[in-house]
């Protein structure tokens, strides 16, 4: 579809998609780098812990994917890729924009904080390698809110773009 086709509502949708993956990706990058800083220090002394560390580093990376999923879902559900394009009103567009923004913020903050939680877990593993299982739990607690945020986003996107709902919103 050519750009002239994009009405304001539709444009707002993609703005929201951009915010969702942009903020989430930035958060994951940030969170991972926090964990990596801690990890590099530990590996200098104890290179054998690499395997356990890798898991701890990878944990804050999921938020980026959650944002990506939200963005892709917006694109497919509004018909930008594959499938028939549906009419999107200004109201729906605005709603979508803020859903994307909310998702982005949740992912951004949780990724950063998860990075910090991972770093804390890493220093625990450094001192007591046998408690790796427990250390993995710390970041998982933080991630809960990223998962819940994603779920809410997915539900919103699906329901906002179903024809019935669209009619209802005008």
């Amino acid at each position, binding site marked *: 579809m050519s750009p002239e086709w994009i009405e304001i509502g539709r444009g707002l949708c993609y703005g929201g998609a951009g915010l969702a993956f942009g903020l989430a990706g930035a958060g994951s990058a940030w969170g991972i780098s926090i964990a990596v800083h801690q990890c590099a220090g530990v590996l200098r002394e104890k*290179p*054998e812990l*690499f*395997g356990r560390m*890798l*898991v701890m580093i*990878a*944990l804050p*990376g*999921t938020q980026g*994917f*959650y944002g*990506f*999923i939200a963005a*892709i*879902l917006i694109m*497919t559900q509004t018909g930008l*890729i*594959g499938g028939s394009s549906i009419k999107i009103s200004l109201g729906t567009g605005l709603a979508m924009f803020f859903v994307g923004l909310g998702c982005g913020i949740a992912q951004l903050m949780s990724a950063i904080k998860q990075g910090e939680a991972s770093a804390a877990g890493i220093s625990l593993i450094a001192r007591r390698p046998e408690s*790796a*299982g*427990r250390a*993995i*739990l710390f970041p*998982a*607690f933080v*991630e*809960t809110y990223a*998962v*819940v945020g*994603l*779920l809410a986003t*997915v*539900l919103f996107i*699906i329901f906002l773009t179903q024809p019935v709902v669209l009619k209802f919103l005008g």
Partner: protein
Amino acid sequence: MAIEPLKKVTIVNTKEAHRRLIKTINNLGIMEVIDARSILKDDVPFTTPKVDTSSADSNLNKIDFILNLMDTFLPEKENFLKSLTPLPVVTSETELNKILKEYNLDEHYKYAVELDETYRNAERIIAEIETEMEDLRPLMDIDIDLEELYSTKRIKILIGYVPEKKLKAIDEKEEIWQWIAWEKVSPSEGLKEKEDRKDTVIKVKVIFAFLKEYEEEVKKLLSELNFEEITLPKRKEKVKERMAELEEDKENYKNKIAEVKEKVNYLLEDNTPREAKKKLLILKAYWTNVRNRQLALMKGVEGKWVYMVSGYIRAKDTELLKNTIEKEFPQSIITIEDPSPEEDVPVSISVPYLLRPIQLLTEMFGLPYYKNFDPTPFMQINFYLFFGICFSDVCYGIMLTLMGAYLSKKTRLYRGVNNLSRMLFYGGISSIIFGALTGSWFGDLYKPEYLGEGNILYMLQQKFVIIDPMAKTIIALIIALGLGVLNQFFGITLKMYGLYRKRDFIGVISDGLCWIITLTGILIMAGQVFTDLPKSIFNTGIFLFIIGAIGLILTQGREIKGTAGRFAGGLISLYGIVGSYGITAFIGDTLSYCRLLALGLTTSIVAMAFNLMAGMLKGIPYIGIILFIIVLVIGHVFNFLISALGAFVHSMRLIFVEFFGRFYEGGARPFQPLGFDSNLCIIKKEKKAII
């Protein structure tokens, strides 16, 4: 399938044979030795035997020293997968005996120390040379002997940088300049230095010479010029000559280091570095074992004639221990009894082979206490179920199953890794099932636009799919939460079981049954929001809720003194801040299970995104199909790894936090029998022999 019953063993033997006794116990590898003092009364005049561990300690130090040196000079090219999970070395008794006989540790150590000293010396000297060269570098352009620049009895010579601007502004007619002789050393180009970000200040090197009597005035003047002095090194020759000399020295010492590197190879004695390291590790395991044996010896006590050692043993091993000890030490007395309730008994759990992988999780969280029950059998179905739902994709499941099967075959000797591989294997099977039910085969790769009309994946997908979570999200969400409710109820039931085992019948009713009644009531009432329930069912819900709540309010505060306090405690615990559970806690726990849906969706949506990208490339003529395949392979491998990690971590979390939170308390001391096998090295059994 539970916590293995342990027996407490006490062996009393003649004092002379104490070393041999501990050695026998060590070889059997079935008994954990504990501090025998703790079981004696304080006034028993037994003493701790004196044991010298210094030789084992020094040998271990020597081995570590050689290993360190080898790591510095012969770093092993590590296999990436191996570095993920460090595996113990596997050896056999023949090999161990051969190494003990042939390997001359002292000689190797002496050689290694020499090499290490040479190496460190050379490193130190190179560092010194480098600092000196660093100091000399700014003086490279002074083409006279340094000696000439020394201050003499009456004349002071200073060399240093002055900003070019200031130098130009010098008014030579001023009186003081009549006393100073100066010359630019590097007239052509100066040292450029940035100041305040915008201005570059060009500094030139200048030599000043003046009579000592004017020193104070001149120095004041120079500081106004922003003069920065360079301290001259105490050398006589030209800087260039000295530099060349240093360069040569450095080269020499570098050669020395290279020589050391070469010489380290002698340590290998025609082995590859890996083999040599393996030998050392086996030796290390041997000496660690010797040391552990000596430490165990010190845990026993001795009197004038007798030596006594005490410990725990698995009930099934008692016969073996008893027979061996009685045969080898006919005059010994061995008593075997049940541990008393107040003892801190170590815990060993044993589960049938099929269920064993999940034992890893129990060990991770912390072992159950000896008097409680082992949760391992009760977290099999739910863990694999959660994993399967989170990872739900048929093709990923097949990949994981194959990977698990391959790894478990490869790692049969290593218990921990083997369990993990088998966990992946079962998890893969579960993913295949849930992937088929939710219709995810590499995401939506089955669609005609990727693989063409009527492809086999499409037919299979259509055949098995019963719910598409993307289309019927709310239904899928309710299923996920429903599983959560079931799992929470299962947890409460296990809590009742635990309380029943402790004969706490009031607890069974109040902390278990009352909650189940109350929560069932709430669930029925919540059902009203979604569908129109018949009046009678709804009323039953209210009735159940009220009965349960009354029971809880009356019993939850039973630890608190005073009727009013007890009542208030009951009321608060119904809400869920204190007490065994709470309505808010239950809602929170149940909602947490929505991650099952979210992670399941993540796996398939990311896969779909990669399919979409690959599909766009497919249209390109000639290379399109190749790009299509490349993007698919890379994308799916990536998604496979990240989703597997997510699925594992989150199913584990659901088990540890939501499920274990209901009934389980871990943290017991694991049972560690005295024996050779360790994380470092294990002995493959050939035949029964004595080390």
